[in-house]
């Protein structure tokens, strides 16, 4: 465990790895936080169109410092821009896109993911917490594919990938794939199955840090070149 900090992928490497799995022309919603990094690593020759649930399709990068418009923000309330071909719309139309299955991919952070694809990412259930859910429950219920991008374990070393979530759920059986610092894992009928292991990670190490059985896969071992 002393080598923990050198095992696996950095956040940027996770984002780059995830971006490789997004098809050209996809409509994508990137959750607040780590998932936003994905937009920095669009593979050569591909175009992704970003949806932000507060009413913009075709979201562009952050503007120059000081050039932001307080009325052009993303779901994280940060200043953004609009690309050529963008469209604005109201909240009911925005969530019709989400709920109606029109978005190709939602990338979200997680507190816990279960072996059956349950996701918990909005509340620890602590009695003094202010409950706040935003659009996460809509995204996981509606979007065609749901990828989770997360550190494999919590800051205190507890596994985030578990047999069953102990935190309140965001959705039941909704996660398709997990991109962690240690591995890429599919949620399959049999549970978590490795798609790819991060640099320096072997299956016993991954299993040790995962709260549910991990199935091996015939995959090449190694990270991305960067």
């Amino acid at each position: 465990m002393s080598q923990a900090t050198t095992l696996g992928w950095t956040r940027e490497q996770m984002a780059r790895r995830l971006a490789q799995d997004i098809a050209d022309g996809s409509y994508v919603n990137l959750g607040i936080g780590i998932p936003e990094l994905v937009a920095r690593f669009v593979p050569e020759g591909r175009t992704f169109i970003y949806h932000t649930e507060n009413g913009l399709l075709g979201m562009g990068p952050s503007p120059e410092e000081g050039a932001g418009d307080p009325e052009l923000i993303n779901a994280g309330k940060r200043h953004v821009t609009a690309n050529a071909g963008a469209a604005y719309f109201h909240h009911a139309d925005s969530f019709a896109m989400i709920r109606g299955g029109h978005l190709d991919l939602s990338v979200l952070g997680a507190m816990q993911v279960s072996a059956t694809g349950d996701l918990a990412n909005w509340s620890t259930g602590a009695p003094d917490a202010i409950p706040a859910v935003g659009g996460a429950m809509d995204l996981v219920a509606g979007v065609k594919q749901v990828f989770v991008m997360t550190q494999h374990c919590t800051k205190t070393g507890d596994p985030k990938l578990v047999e069953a979530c102990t935190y309140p759920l965001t959705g039941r059986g909704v996660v398709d794939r997990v991109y962690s610092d240690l591995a890429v894992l599919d949620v399959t009928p049999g549970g978590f199955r490795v798609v790819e292991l991060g640099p320096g990670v072997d299956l016993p190490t991954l299993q040790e840090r995962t709260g549910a059985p991990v199935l091996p896969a015939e995959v090449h071992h190694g990270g991305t070149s960067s």
Partner: protein
Amino acid sequence: MIDKRAASAAEVVADIPDGSSIMVGGFGEAGSPVELIHALIDQGASNLTIISNNTGSGEVGLAALLKERRVTKVICSFPKTLNSTVFPELYREGFTELELVPQGTLAERIRAGGAGVPAFFTPTAVGTPLAEGKESREFHGREYVLEHGLTADYALIKGATADTHGNVLYNKTARNFAPIMATAADVTIVQAARVLEPGAIDPETIVTPGIFVDRVLEVADPVHESRLVAEGASYP
């Protein structure tokens, strides 16, 4: 790069199989995608279910598709209009089945289908033959009937201006069902008089965002159904 333009009307409808359900925009002739419908006639698909407010007039456009005996069911609010003779004959003959839906319920069912809502309650048609056999329930002392979301395999719609990302603007009351049909079909095919580069349309004014549109065909000078009917035209 995203470019949803198709090269020809034939190409844009080529893959529509027999037995498809197809939403067709338009209210009367306004917004009727006549060129796309004619391409579908040429293409040959049959045993179709058509979801549209009317059933066309004369022997062009939607009426011509019906006349070719390619439509076995229509879901519709008003299947008879002036100069509409094709559908009545097929209906009386028993060839084409009719599911009659109040116009606002038709619109809301399509909107629900596109928005991932499988069913909703509406006050429309309560106490009438069109609510018979349907589940009803009281809310706040009033009776409502349960209606179901409606989706389709394809939508054929007519816009005024589009861009290569599939964003669409419409002309006046030709808008009608097109924006909601675009949301409710697996594959949405748009004909538009102009197809521009992304960024040429003000993003504040876009009616149908490109996410709902799969293919865009430029038809620079679309025919007007009423003029064809007045000329006694028939297709093919």
